[in-house]
Each structure stands twice: as C-alpha cells, then as structure tokens.
C-alpha cells in the first residue's frame, strides 16, 4: 500500500521503526513481551527510549523532541503493523502529554525527563465503571487533609497501567471542581488488578482506598474536562494509527494467502468474488488511513486535534478494523482461527481495537452531537 503523503520527518521515523520491528520484533519476541508480568519488557522499553520514541511527542522545553501528533502517528502505525505489545501510546501521547500540560509551562520537570529517558513509565486511568467511555463522568473523590490529598474510588480497565511506576487519575475536589493527581504505583491504599487482554497486551483496573496522591492541577470541571478530553483525543488518533498499521499488515497477509492457496486446481484469488472482497478491504483501509492522517494533521502545532475529526476517525477505524478481521478469518478458512498461524494475532488485535477507546456507537453519537446538536 502507498504511503504517499507523509512529511519527511514522519517518513524517516516510519522507515526506521519498520526496520526495527522487522529485525527485532518477531513473534517470539512479541511473546516474550506479552508474557512479561507487566506486558512491557524492560530492555525493550530502554531501546524505545534510546531511539527517542519516548521523547518524541513531548515538548522540547520538557526534554522532549517536540514531535507533532502526525509524527507520533507515523511511529504508532509501524508499531501497530508489528503488533508491538509495549504501551508506548498510552505512556507518551496520553500520560506524558497530560503531565506536560498539567505542569506549569517552562518549568523543567524531572518526571518528564525521566519519562523521556525511560527510567520511569507512567500511565493515565481515564474511565470509571458507571461512565464506561466518558472520562468526564467521575465519582472518584479527593479529600484534602493534614497529610495532603486522599483519593477514594475506582478506575476501570485501561492499557499501560500494569507495571507503570506512576499513575495519573482524575478526582472530584469540591462542588464544580476537579483535579488530576499523581501517585506512585506502590502507594498504600492503591489496589491494581492486572489483566491480560486477548491481543496479548496488558491492562489493569484500580481501586483507591484513602490513597495519598499529589495534586498536579486543579480547577473548575470544564477546564479539567477539556484537558482530559484533548489528551484522550490525541490518544484515540494514535490508537487509530496503530490499528491502521495492523490492518494493512493483516490485509497483506490475507492477500498473499489467497494468492497461493489453491482449491479446485486454481488460486482462490482467481475467483471474482474473492477479488472484489479484497478490493473492498483495500479501499476501506486506504480511506481509514487518509482520515486518520487528516485527523492527526488537524492537531497542527497545538497538539490538539479537531473533536469532529477524532470522532470520525475513531468510528471509521472501529468499523473497518472489524470488517478486516472478520474477512481475514473467512478468506483464510479454518487456519485463520488458529493461534499458531500468523493471521491469528492480527485478528485478535483488530478485534479489540474497536472497543478499547469506545465502540463505534459511542463515536458515532459524538459525531452526531456535533453535526445535529445534542438530543433536545
């Protein structure tokens, strides 16, 4: 497939990431990362740091490389293509950016430079059970006492939390006010429940029971919600880019399979019905890639993407990734349902992709609300 419209920076980044994945991230190595208790191999993470990938989306004033969201997406697409398990997007594009934006501008932050050099890993737990995909709907509370802030509540399953050194959570601080809090993962009163997902990535939920935490930023609901929504929109787009990478590779594997697999004495790809189905996948993937790139580009130098484009990209990714994995199985036949054959891992990744940051109906309603107004 063509990669035709990347700027030079993003293209160089994508090329080097592809080489890295092809040389150093085989199925065996993916299994090693996935079977690590944190779903993130420490040596691997240090390599990411050495390559500058952890610093990429952080501002230069914070020790980062000042890469755009498009740059982050160019990298994410290649890592998705290689089914990289490590939680790069959630650590940098999401938690790193949130930390950077909650820290006073211009103030050097040890934490951010440690994040950039790989010495600590950080994650944000956005959602709660009652709200599912709406990170602005909070019940977690923060009480200020003589020994600082104590948090009470729970956060639901999110990527990157297992094994993270530091966590960011949002909590209500008073009437009409809320804040973002930072806490170490070994804090007393913090209970982390790790889970391995079907695609081999690790996620976790957490409970906060009078858990001490450091306040990062506090303000009226609207301001904090805007900050969190922007951070998540960035993450959704990077997640879309990862998923596009996985879709492209799954498509290529499937195309090669139908080109070589023979039945009735000829390649199954010589049947017109198979050809047309592959064309549909190809076109849908190309459209999704174009839309995701346009959404990333909408962030410009502010780093904040258009909500309209984000909702459309997320919905498109959810719809097309489902079409791709379902067809990948069907066009492979029974072998497409096995764990041992290569397409299986792509199927698992793509099947989950459309749910992690909200299913298609959630994103379509967000899009509808922007085009048709809220339901009156």
């Amino acid at each position, binding site marked *: 497939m063509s990669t035709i419209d990347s700027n030079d920076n993003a293209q160089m980044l994508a090329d080097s990431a592809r080489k890295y994945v092809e040389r150093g991230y085989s199925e065996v190595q993916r299994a090693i990362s996935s079977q690590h208790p944190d779903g993130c191999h420490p040596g691997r993470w240090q390599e990411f740091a050495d390559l500058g990938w952890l610093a990429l989306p952080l501002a230069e004033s914070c020790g980062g490389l000042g890469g755009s969201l498009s740059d982050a997406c160019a990298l994410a697409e290649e890592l998705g293509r290689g089914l990289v398990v490590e939680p790069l997007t959630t650590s940098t594009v999401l938690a790193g950016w949130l930390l950077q934006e909650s820290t006073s501008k211009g103030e050097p932050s040890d934490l951010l430079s440690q994040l950039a050099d790989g010495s600590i890993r950080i994650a944000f737990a956005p959602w709660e059970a009652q709200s599912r995909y709406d990170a602005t709907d909070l019940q977690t509370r923060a009480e200020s006492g003589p020994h600082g802030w104590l948090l009470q509540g729970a956060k639901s399953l999110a990527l990157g939390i297992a094994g993270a050194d530091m966590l960011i959570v949002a909590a209500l601080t008073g009437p009409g006010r809320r804040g973002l809090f930072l806490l170490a993962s070994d804090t007393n009163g913090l209970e982390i429940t790790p889970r391995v997902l079907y695609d081999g990535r690790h996620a976790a939920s957490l409970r906060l029971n009078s858990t001490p935490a450091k306040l990062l930023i506090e303000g009226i609901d609207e301001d904090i919600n805007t900050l969190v929504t922007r951070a998540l929109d960035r993450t959704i787009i990077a997640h879309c880019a990862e998923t596009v990478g996985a879709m492209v590779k799954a498509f290529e594997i499937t*195309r090669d399979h139908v080109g070589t697999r023979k039945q009735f004495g000829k390649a199954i790809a010589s049947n017109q019905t198979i050809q*047309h189905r592959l*064309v549909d996948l190809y076109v849908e993937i*190309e459209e999704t890639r174009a*839309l995701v790139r346009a959404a990333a580009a909408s962030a410009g130098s502010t780093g904040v993407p258009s909500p309209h484009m984000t909702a459309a990209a997320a919905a498109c990714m959810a719809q097309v990734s489902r079409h791709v994995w379902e067809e990948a199985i069907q066009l492979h036949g029974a072998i497409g349902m096995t764990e041992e054959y290569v397409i299986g891992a792509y199927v698992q990744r793509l099947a989950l992709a459309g749910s992690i940051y909200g299913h298609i109906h959630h994103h379509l*309603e967000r899009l509808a609300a922007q*085009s048709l107004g809220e339901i*009156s």
Partner: protein
Amino acid sequence: MSTSPDLSTFRARLRSFLSSKLPDDIREATRCGRQLTRERLLAWHKILAAENLLVPHWQPEWGGQGWSVTQQMIYDEEMALHDAPELNSVTFDMFGPVLMRYGTPAQQQRFLPAIASGDQWWCQGYSEPNAGSDLAALVTRGDRAGPHYIVNGSKIWTSYAQYADWMFCLVRTAREGKPQEGISFLLIDMKTPGITVRPIVGIHGWVVFNEVFFDNVQVPADLIIGEENTGWSIAKSLLEFERLKLARIGENKRRRARAREAAMTRSEGGRRVADQPWFRERFAELEMRLMALEANAGRFIARQQAGEQLGAEVSMLKMRGSRLIQLWEELTVDALGPEALPLDPTWLYAPQESSDGHAAKQASQHDALAGTASSRRFLARGYTIAGGSSEIQHNILAKQVLGL
C-alpha cells in the same frame, strides 16, 4: 482542503458570484430535484461563460483560467452547496480535453470556442444494447464512402441526447482482429438527416437516457478524431480526465445538507427525526464516510499537484463517492417517511420561470424537498452504473492495483 488565504478569497468570490448570479428558478429547481429544461441550462451556461466560469479548468488559450485541481474542487463544492445544477461533464470535462489532446487544429478551432462560450451541448455515444460494460462489443458501423462515413446502428442510455447539438460517437470501422482495434471516434451533428432520438422516461420521472438510431447518417470524414481504428484508446483516455472529480465530494455535501434538513424539520415518535437514535447513527456513519472520502481525495490531489502521475488506484474515489450519494438519498427518504411516497407531477414538472413571492417559495420548499425525494433516490442509482460501473471499478482495482 487547504485553507490558505488565497483560497479563502477564491472561495469567497465564488460564493458571492453564486449568491448574486444564479437565477432563482434554477436554484429552486435544482434544490428540489426537478429536471431543468435545455433553455434554462444553456442560460446558466451563458451566465457562467460571461464570467469565465464555465470552463475555468481549461487552459487560457481555449478560454479557461488554468485552475489547479484544488481550485476546481472548491468550485464544484460551492456550486453544489449553492444549488447550482451539476454541469454536463461529458461536454466540459471529457470532450473538451479530448479535443485539446487529439483534435486537429481545425477541429479545435471549430468546436472549443463554441463549447467555452456555452453555445454547444455534447453527448456521448458509447453504450449500445449489447455493449454496456463490455463496450468493445459495439456494432454500430461507420463505413467509409468517399468523403463521408455512413453510420448505421443505434446507441442507448445516451445521457441528454435530447438536449445535445453534437455527439461524439464510437463506431465500428473494422471487423478483423481484436474488437478494440476496429473502433473509430466520430463527431456527429445531431441535426444530420437519418438520426432519430427516442427519449426514455426513467423511474425517477426525468428524461436522462435516450435511444439514438442512425439510418445511413452521412458524417464528413474530417470529423474523425485521431486515425481510423484508434478510437478505443481515445475513448479510454477520456475517462482519465477529471478522475478526481468523480469522488463527487460537492454532490455528496449537497445531499448531506438535504438529509440534515429533512431530519431537522420532521418528527417521528413525538420527537425530531434528528433526535432519533437510528437517524443519528446512520447520519454520523455517512458523514464519517464522507470525511474519509474527502481525506482520501485530498491525498490524490496533493499527489497530482506535486506532478505525480496517478494510477488506477484513483478508481476508488469514483467507487466510493457514487455509492455514498445513494446512501444519503436513502437516508433522506427514511427521514421523510410517508411524505416521500406520492408521485406529484406538479412537483416534478413545476414551471421554471417562477414569479412566486419569497414567503410562498419558502413554504413550497418544505414540500418540494419531500415531493422529489423518491425521484432523487432513483436518479442516484445511475452514479454506480455510468462511467464504469462499480463492478468494473472493482475489477480495475483487483487487477491493476492489487495484482490479483
């Protein structure tokens, strides 16, 4: 779409032109999905030509302005959003450029100025009863006899032949060898004796299609484009012009606005259709597809402007854009419910020089949107058939892009 200051000014100028110069009756008929008469369409062509806006994508030597692809896309979009009728692309986007590339100087001088001034309407004589997607199976014959070709046979599904002054026509001039190698590209004056045009009324109530019969029609031999028996490659190259336009982004946005308007002004189950979960989800899905189509077209535009030659993969724009138009029309029909069902000739064939007051016009629009919705839904089916059906586009992408 780029939003550089130059393009913003460009768009603003187009908007102001369209707001002031598009005649009310034409806007109204287009908005409501009524077929325009030849007279009114030609009147609109003359207005555009007077402002140098009929063929702005042509080179200045032929009366154009040499617009970039981006400018053309903005133009198409603004035309659609202002309810200007879709221009006859066969004449302006296909035949004109073919003539510039393959015509003799005499042919160019004879036809290009007439087209650029809005005086001439062309139709495309390609399909025949037994040659649709398999166009090379055509049998209408052109037999050389002294200074003429004598044309016998028939064409069908010829769009707007009833309006056309001229036809460019594929005829069989040789029967040996591969079918593609015996086809010539002739220009035929529709007033030539021996031509009969039979309009075919569509299920939408419009006359788009025609059957055209040729009974010993004499065509001067100097009205052949290219050499004898080279018509196939000329005919194919014609489909390569303006392939980016076939995404029909503007036409899709026009329909998006209509679907939204229908849902905002109608109720179902005691609330606005726009508040019904089924409508919201469907509308958002189509909007998502339109945004994806536009982003995808944007990549091709960027490549073309960078001077890159576009390959067969452009077919995907036509394939997706044409289908999306149909989905918008379906959604509009659903949003209108029973209002979309009656076939009322007063809506379809309303007089086009209207002297109604503004208030009356507003009231009538409410009904007219519904009164012609089914007609538009049927009309939209043509997009996935004409100009290379969706199935042919699939074949092209499978063979030439995916190598299957």
